[in-house]
């Protein structure tokens, strides 16, 4: 079984402070991990994926297989970063891909 855990429901930080949104996963194979973001009353959209090793809007995330984590980080939070963030894992079940989302973390950046 695959599982994604986001331990924080709400994370409040001041503008300019560093941000770290935690994500831990459980999966027996090689996972594909993603971060999705949902701005207020908008659709979910991909923020970044581990396979691309990219930085989007100043966010980065490194897959740590030893700790089974994929934490999302940004050195200096901006007000426009306030949103819901979901960590997601794509694994395989019965020959088909299965996507599991974490419960989400609401990031609130205080001006």
């Amino acid at each position: 079984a695959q599982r994604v855990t986001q331990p924080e429901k709400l994370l409040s930080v001041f503008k300019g402070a560093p941000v770290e949104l935690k994500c831990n996963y459980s999966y027996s194979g090689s996972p594909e991990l993603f971060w999705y973001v949902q701005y207020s009353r908008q659709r979910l959209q991909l923020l970044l994926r581990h396979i691309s090793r990219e930085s989007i809007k100043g966010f980065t995330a490194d897959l740590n297989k030893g700790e089974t984590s994929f934490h999302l980080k940004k050195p200096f939070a901006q007000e426009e970063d306030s949103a819901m963030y979901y960590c997601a894992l794509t694994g395989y079940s019965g020959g088909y891909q299965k996507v599991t989302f974490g419960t989400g973390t609401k990031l609130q950046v205080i001006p």
Partner: protein
Amino acid sequence: DTAVSQTPKYLVTQMGNDKSIKCEQNLGHDTMYWYKQDSKKFLKIMFSYNNKELIINETVPNRFSPKSPDKAHLNLHINSLELGDSAVYFCASSQLAGVGKTQYFGPGTRLLVL
């Protein structure tokens, strides 16, 4: 052009009614999904279809019946609506093969059951 679209955007209805939500994607993807996002923002997969075939059916009441007339469409029909069905329903699509397997989401349908 909108990649994944859903209709209607808002749906307000009475308990016991039957309603449908439509989803269409123009990305040429072979896999489509329905998710339910509740009032606490928890996002839970309901169904997944690959090439019009059901491949994932999570623990969802059988009042919910997905239908995929073709690869580009996945509709959700809900019978005998209950108060607890009130939520935002998101459709999504992805390409099964290939690297990344990013999900592309529709704008959501806000369902309110009175």
